[in-house]
């Protein structure tokens, strides 16, 4: 079976800024593929190229079997898009927004009513179909956009930061709907996020940093690759604890958010030794399995939050994206 999305050496430079530096990837049909990285890593630019909204300056990509440059309309007919910023007509009702979309995408008329009901029920907005979008909350608007992106039965649904700016409860419900969607529809989901916990929902994730793919695997494999658990301690004397960890155990620790944090293999067997041998009073211990943040850290040497705060200026693509 041909991949739903395939990229070979896909690159984009703006002037002399390389936003994406040659990406290779294959996404299998039916897969939920996550694109993870800090803001400015090149995720949005990549997705824009795959969606035919930005022209690659190098390499090639095919989506649903069509070349993103040479067969632009064919790609567009085969994809659904949910953007970071909403693109609804607030003065129209939910159903009117969807009907507008259906006409633009040429959804067969005899299928439209059934399809409309199906996607609206999937996101729990069927009852509100006659309400103007103006009256919707942020989460409802996003759900409506997801429904709209699915209306024309796309092969690949692209979601660019589908939950950004939403409260945790709404984020969870969006993920509930996306899970439902994977069961109900024959669709490949390609999404970007910078929420690490959300990447866990994906079948596979690609980690992107500075325009390059630095890792690509299932979340489990990526975490297993890190192999170490994360231990954080609250102690009476952090400096002494760090020195003792280095001296006695050969471990490098740092202070993060007021706790002494370090990575160690087999954490549950290490903690008893810690109490016995550290020599600095310990007030509390937290032991965590490797998270995607640890994965990110092991590949980039920093946490995703550090990467965010050291964020480079917005890509020209972002400034021009309303066009």
């Amino acid at each position, binding site marked *: *079976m*041909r991949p*739903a999305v395939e990229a070979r050496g896909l690159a984009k430079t703006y002037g002399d800024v390389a936003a994406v530096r040659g990406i290779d990837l294959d996404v299998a*049909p039916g897969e939920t593929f996550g694109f993870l990285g800090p803001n400015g890593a090149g995720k949005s630019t990549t997705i824009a190229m795959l*969606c*035919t*909204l*930005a*022209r690659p300056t190098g390499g090639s990509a095919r989506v*649903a*079997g069509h070349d993103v440059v040479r*067969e632009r*309309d*064919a790609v*567009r*007919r*085969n994809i659904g*898009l949910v*953007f970071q*910023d*909403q*693109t*609804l*007509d*607030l*003065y*129209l009702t939910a159903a*009117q927004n969807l*009907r*507008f*979309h259906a*006409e*633009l*995408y*040429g*959804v*067969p008329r005899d*299928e439209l009513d059934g399809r409309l009901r199906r996607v609206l029920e999937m996101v729990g907005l069927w009852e509100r179909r006659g309400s103007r979008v103006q009256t919707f909350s942020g989460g409802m608007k996003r759900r409506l956009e997801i429904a709209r992106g699915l209306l*024309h*039965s*796309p*092969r690949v649904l692209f979601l660019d930061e589908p939950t950004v700016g939403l409260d945790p409860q709404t984020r969870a419900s969006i993920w509930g709907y996306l899970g439902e969607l994977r069961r109900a*529809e*024959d669709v490949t989901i390609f999404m970007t996020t910078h929420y690490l916990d959300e990447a866990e929902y994906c079948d596979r994730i690609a980690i992107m940093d500075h325009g390059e793919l630095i890792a690509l695997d299932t979340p489990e494999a990526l975490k297993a690759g890190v192999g170490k658990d994360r231990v954080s301690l609250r102690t009476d004397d952090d400096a002494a604890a760090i020195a003792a960890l280095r001296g006695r155990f050969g471990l490098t620790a740092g202070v993060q958010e007021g706790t002494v944090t370090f990575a160690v293999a087999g954490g549950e067997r290490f903690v008893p030794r810690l109490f016995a041998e550290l020599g600095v009073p310990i007030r509390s211990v937290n032991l965590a399995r490797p998270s995607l943040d640890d994965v990110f850290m092991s590949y980039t040497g920093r946490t995703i939050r550090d990467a965010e705060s050291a964020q480079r200026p917005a890509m020209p693509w972002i400034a021009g*994206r*309303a*066009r």
Partner: protein
Amino acid sequence: MSADPATAPAAVRLPDGGRRHDLRAVTVVLRRELIRFWQDRMRIVIALVQPALFLFVLGSGLAALTSAGSGGFDLRTFLFPGVLAMSVMMPAMFSAGSIVIDREYGFLREMLVAPVSRTALVVGKCLGGAIVATGQGVLVLLLAPAVGISYGVAWMAAAIGLMFVLAFTLTALGVMVAGRIRSFQGFMALVNMLVMPMLFLSGAMFPLSGLPRWLTVLTHVNPLTYAVDAVRRTVFAHVDISERSRAVLAPGVHWGGWQVPVAAEVAIVAVLGLVLLAVAAAQFRRTE
């Protein structure tokens, strides 16, 4: 374009694309324009204020001053065709301006990423704007008896047709401008800068006979002149007016010694509209 059988899951039925698909796009963009117009009924009322002001306040106020010059002809009757043209101008521009707002609020993107030709989108927009603006003009047209012009099927139908052609051209002009302007404030400022001189130089407010040469040149390059003249001649064919007054108030547009016929005037406006439409479509095709 046919689907690759290797990747086509059974559940997916692809839209056909092609001309019929473009036609659906034209229709739905147009329909949205009508829905939005109907929803914004306040705008309809507000858009009636300006024509009414010109007709009843300015027209009545200046009537005393000008009754000598117009040979006793009611100034409001003279102004009426110009006011009809004016009444479609603003709604046409507003329709076009909604593109700028759609861009600000993101909806333009939903349209631009769709697998339809940009030309179809622009055509739908211009037709929608033209219909909405003509509808607005029809409301003003219904005021005819208040300025001494009785209803009649033939002249009113002709006036509606003329307003539609004018409205289409103005919407196309607005869409072309909207393709380049990024803020609604900027758009409105530019539109005002265009509309007022066009209106003043069109013969909507005063007859174009006996103007200084430089003004005559300006009025001749103003497309609105031909639209206003065509509407005025259509309306005046229906009213009772002395030949002397007609010669002063509706002299027609002359190129050298040749009076441009109404059909040619309509053609000028329509062709300009199509050219502007083509430019606007090309502009939107270029943006990614």
